[in-house]
């Protein structure tokens, strides 16, 4: 049980720090909006093409924004040697992973929820009747990104070119989840039946479970000196 209380302690600390400084959420949200802008000019969104590439644009923006947030989750601990403080504490060090992962998950979800109205506004989509399934997809997609992303953020935080290395590590690894999110979102917006969406949900669930478990098991190797 102390594992969970320590996980919560780390999560609370990160959320509190963010509440004070708002250093992670605002840039991430602005980044998503700017990405949507760039995509708009790149692809001339609007009209029929939108339904085809809308989901792809949305999730691409989220994935790129996640790179910003994920990096910060461990880089911030380098100030004042705070990571040592976490390592000094007794108990399973995977609690650090779990706390950070949940924090990243919440930040990603927040970014996605804030961006959604803008997305529907810019691109004249109405997810109204599909809001619940869409939120479910946001949750699964964010969990996928956070699961491996947190581990890789810990990995790259100690390396040269960490800002460059994180995307190179994360993007290929997260492809199955990205593909599933995009396809499932497209199907949801089309109002397709659950049977067609189910396989993608399966992939996402498996991805989250497998990679969170692996990360928990392997985190110790990544974080210690």
């Amino acid at each position, binding site marked *: 049980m102390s594992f969970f209380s320590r996980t919560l302690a780390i999560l609370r600390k990160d959320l509190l720090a963010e509440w004070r400084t708002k250093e992670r959420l605002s840039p991430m949200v602005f980044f998503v909006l700017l990405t949507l802008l760039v995509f708009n000019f790149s692809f001339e969104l609007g009209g029929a093409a939108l339904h085809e590439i809308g989901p792809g644009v949305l999730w691409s923006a989220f994935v790129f924004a996640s790179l910003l947030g994920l990096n910060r989750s461990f880089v911030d601990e380098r100030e004042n040697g705070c990571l040592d403080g976490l390592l000094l504490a007794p108990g399973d060090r995977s609690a650090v992973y779990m706390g950070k992962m949940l924090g990243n998950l919440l930040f990603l979800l927040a970014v996605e929820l804030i961006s959604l109205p803008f997305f529907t506004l810019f691109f004249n989509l109405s997810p109204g009747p599909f809001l619940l399934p869409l939120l479910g997809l946001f949750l699964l997609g964010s969990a996928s990104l956070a699961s491996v992303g947190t581990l890789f953020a810990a990995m790259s935080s100690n390396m040269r070119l960490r800002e460059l290395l994180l995307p190179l590590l994360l993007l290929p690894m997260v*492809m199955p989840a990205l593909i*599933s999110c995009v396809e499932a979102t497209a199907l949801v917006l089309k109002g397709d039946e659950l049977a067609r969406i189910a396989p993608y949900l399966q992939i996402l669930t498996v991805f989250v479970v497998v990679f969170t478990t692996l990360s928990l098991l392997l985190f110790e190797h990544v974080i210690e000196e």
Partner: protein
Amino acid sequence: MSARLSNLFAALVFLSMIAALGAVFLYVPTERTMGLVQRIFYFHVPAAISAFLAFFIVFVASIQYLRTQEMKWDRLALSAAELGVLFGLIVLITGPIWARPIWGVYWRWEPRLTSMLILFSMYVAYLMVRSYGTSSARTPRLASVLGILAFVNVPLVYYSVNLWAAEQQLHPQKIALEPPMKYTLYICYAAFLLFFLFLLQRRLELEKTADALTDLQQQLSDD
């Protein structure tokens, strides 16, 4: 491996390659529908199998390194990863060469090529982690973690890409093989496997020597 044995092995590999080339270009008849370019198949498929074998070796070696902390497992993982990237590259190059005359385009986003491209990217990232690690005490551990994650991801990659491209199934799924083609393919499998093992053995020795040199340097600088 002693020098004599090593040279014998090299000779064996060389001969098997000659045999494979002979089989592909002289023995097997030209395929009916695809013509001359179809012969690339005999290199494309074994290369893919070799790449998968390499990725599997990285997976096992990574687990073993984390369990035992013995450098020999790390050397094996690194060598296998390089070979995986190499053979993956061969697949990604021979694929388009084969595709152009048949489908009219060099590249189509169809399942197997796309999946191989994703796998290729994962293991290139693995090699980058090796290059950009700050302290080579941590690097083998980080790389091992990556080696495990990457292989576990392989089935997920294939499953998801196949779902996505279900309507784009251009890649030949099963080619009906006449006996001469089967034998040629088997010869090429054998040749590629031997070639793979040969490269692996040589690369391992190189890495082992490099490590021994580093150890010596350390011992000298300690005094």
